[in-house]
């Protein structure tokens, strides 16, 4: 038995040492960037310390009795221990003590909870808004299988933040990327937010449950299709904060990173103007009656394809497994254009409908699919899409 005890202390030692050895590898929450995040961090540390103390007490008592009350040392069992006053009254004493600790913990937690649970309802700019609890701007986060869409309702800006870089091809290639620092942590369009601004987040989804989670901001909320959930944060420190989708949402749940770049208010204004200009250019392009050539469509199509479609169908067009069909040599991609357009516009089973894309993007991506990877089929023009809608 002594040997057993040795092994036991050995394990304990190893665990403690490993605790130090890995200190550099994030053993705890990342440093919070909001004051609510800080409070959450504190309440987490508080319960953890209480738990550790309780655990140590219990551990000590057990270890002590293991050495003291063993038959091999000739210890005779006290057959009446459970009939002593202690045995008679422990059923009141123990729960009373536990209840005390429970209430202490719950009290701490409630304090934090009350501060952030209800999101501000009024815009600070509005006449008569409650200045202690109001928001300066709204940001809508919309979960898609499998990327995030962001909308700034007041500014009229809307864009997608998708997993990047999309080299996701096969297993082998995927592995190549795994040496990259930001493997699975980077997106093509970051969500830029101003600091010292109370932001109300409106979380929702268009297909299945997702959850928007950036640890540094201190909250995680589910995105539920058909419902809107409000949360809020006031970011205090500039910086880049990375998170990802935290609710199982199907195949590429692991590839829904979120990158929030917190910048000064001025930088934010500048960024948002840039976004507006981009959207305007897009709109102009859509309205101009330009006749797109095949080459132009192919170039644009490749870009759209690699951001929108490659997650499933892969950059190589070879698809993935049985679930995601290859587009190379696909009967749809090589067949009549009408069917192909219909498939992309309206989706089928797991294949999403892509109505939200512009006619030009759709024409481009469909043309690309029909002519890339050795495919050869007709060119599809924006007008064809318009007709098909």
């Amino acid at each position: 038995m002594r040997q057993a005890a040795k092994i036991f202390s050995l394990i304990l030692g190893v665990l403690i040492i490993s605790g130090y050895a890995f200190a550099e590898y994030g053993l705890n929450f990342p440093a919070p960037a909001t004051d609510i995040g800080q409070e959450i961090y504190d309440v987490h540390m508080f319960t953890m310390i209480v738990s550790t103390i309780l655990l140590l007490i219990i551990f000590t008592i057990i270890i002590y009795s293991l050495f003291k009350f063993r038959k091999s040392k000739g210890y005779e069992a006290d057959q009446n221990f459970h009939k002593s006053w202690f045995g008679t009254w422990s059923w009141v004493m123990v729960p009373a003590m536990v209840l005390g600790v429970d209430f202490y913990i719950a009290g701490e937690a409630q304090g934090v909870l009350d501060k952030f649970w209800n999101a501000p309802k009024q815009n600070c700019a509005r006449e008569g808004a409650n200045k202690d609890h109001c928001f300066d701007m709204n940001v809508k986060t919309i979960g898609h299988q499998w990327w995030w869409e962001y909308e700034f309702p007041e500014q009229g800006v809307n864009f997608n933040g998708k997993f990047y870089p999309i080299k996701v091809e096969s297993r082998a290639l995927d592995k190549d990327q795994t040496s990259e620092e930001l493997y699975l942590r980077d997106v093509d369009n970051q969500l830029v937010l101003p600091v010292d601004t109370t932001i109300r987040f409106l979380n929702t989804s268009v297909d299945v449950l997702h959850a928007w989670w950036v640890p540094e901001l201190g909250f995680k909320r589910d995105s539920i299709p058909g419902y809107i959930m409000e949360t809020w944060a006031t970011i205090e420190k500039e910086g880049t904060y990375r998170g990802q989708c935290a609710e199982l949402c199907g195949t590429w749940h692991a590839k829904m990173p979120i990158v929030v770049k917190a910048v000064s208010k001025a930088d934010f204004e500048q960024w948002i103007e840039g976004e507006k200009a981009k959207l305007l250019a897009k709109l102009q392009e859509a309205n101009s009656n330009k006749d797109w050539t095949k080459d132009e469509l192919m170039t644009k199509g490749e870009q759209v394809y690699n951001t929108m479609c490659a997650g499933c169908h892969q950059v190589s067009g070879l698809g993935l497994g049985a679930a995601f069909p290859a587009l190379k040599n696909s009967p749809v991609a090589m067949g009549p254009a009408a069917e192909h357009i219909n498939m992309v516009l309206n989706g089928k089973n797991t294949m999403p409908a892509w109505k939200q894309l512009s006619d030009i993007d759709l024409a481009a991506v469909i043309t690309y699919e029909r002519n890339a990877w050795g495919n050869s089929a007709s060119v599809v023009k924006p007008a064809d899409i318009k007709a098909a809608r």
Partner: protein
Amino acid sequence: MSTTTMNATHSHDDHGPLKGWRRWLYSTNHKDIGTMYLIFALIMLFLGGASAMAIRAELMYPGLQLLDPDLYNNIVTNHALVMIFGAVMPAAAGLANWMIPLMIGAPDMALPRMNNLSFWILPAAALMLILSFVVPFFPGGGSQINTGWTLYPPLSLKVGMSMDFLIFTIHLLGVSSVLASINIIVTIFNMRAPGMTVWKMPMFVWAWLVTAFLLILIVPVLAGGVTMLLFDRHFGTSFFDAAGGGDPVLFQHLFWFFGHPEVYVLLLPSIGVLSQVIPAFSRKPLFGWNSMIGAMIFLASLGMVVWAHHQYTIGMSSAAVNYFMIGTILISIPVGLMKFNFIATMWRGSMTFETPMLFAISIVIMFVFGGLTGVMLAIVPADMQYHDSMFVVAHFHYVLLPGAVMALFAGVLYWLPKWTGNMYNEKLGKWFFWTSLIGFNGTFFVQHFLGLAGMPRRIVDYSIQFAEFNFISSISAFVYGLSHLIFLYLVITTIKGIGTTKAKPRSWEGAQGLEWEVESPAPFHTWEKAPKIDKEGHYVK
């Protein structure tokens, strides 16, 4: 030996076991049915364990290693369902079948044919479960189940036909557990030997009584919930669709109304086992007998009304989250009392450290650890960070494995001499204990850090910042997995009697209870004549 004579005087010629396969298929004998339950559970443990090994192999390095993302999620779903419904619950039911009639001095279960039915539904359910896993690989089989064991819509509405197989699997499992629970309740209420009042019943019997009640109340709700899922999938209803006025979260409420009490269904029989094992090897009666019963009833009742702590992030009013938070934290009272009673039973005892006892002691420590992380999870603000991260995975393996699986191992080793007539090889037992202890802690301890640092659960691939701990976890998981082979070897050698010694009727020095009054191995029929029990609850020869 009086028991021997007692059983010998009774002639069995008229109703001994049938020969061949009929013995098992047609059985109405609680011991045979118990054996079948246990073997089934062991097979399922290995199946679930094999999928766990696949999970850990995939997570060993960042990047996609072995599994496609859908296959990974399919395996995770299957792993959880097989372990919980296939391994732990049947194993506990097997112990109940074997031991309850022996412990309360009954000749068999109250409803023996129904007993057989509740077992044999399980293989049918297992077949359906396996079909739900493999059907997608056949042409026209639809997509794989990539929802996790919680089956949340709308994702589960999008899965192909394998989801229907899974829904019916859950119906089958539900029927099986409800029938088994009814049988156990009736047996306990109606079949006790004269003088065996409820207040003298062994604690294992009490634990199962509470568990059976819990099952009867919660399983039908899950059945109803998945039925609604089926209707949404095929008959155009809108229970879980906001457009029609429904709410996907409704399913979560129904699932967790079942799911949270379910974890106590897994826990309680093991508390019962520990309440037999710890006094036996401490050579003194269980401390706090009444408070133990009270704690179990309190735990079951409180456990029924705190389900939404799994859903803090779905949007509930602050009154609701406050209620669920406080309710959940209060569960530390009954569980704390149980653990306290175990420690106080060891206190001033005269302990020896056979394998069941080694397990029992380490279970107390590790379960308290897991329970305390549970209390951390119950804190709403902090759960905003923990939820759906690897921290949760670490929590529930720390409660599930010590709290349920390891305690069942302890129970199996404790009663194995009674079942087989042979003492298992203690040395092998110790090897099994130490390897699994090290493997287990190595696997799951580091997952706490992963979760805190921000690694979500149910992801097939992760960024490199999580690589080191996942590697440690995977290697330890393989050690842990291999340790189960020792257990398998141990059980087989004990049954075959290779390298073992013959077991006495009372196989352990400090063991108490009616089950130790019959021979080892227990004869096919026991207590056909009810045993006599004195005022203290002891057997009268």
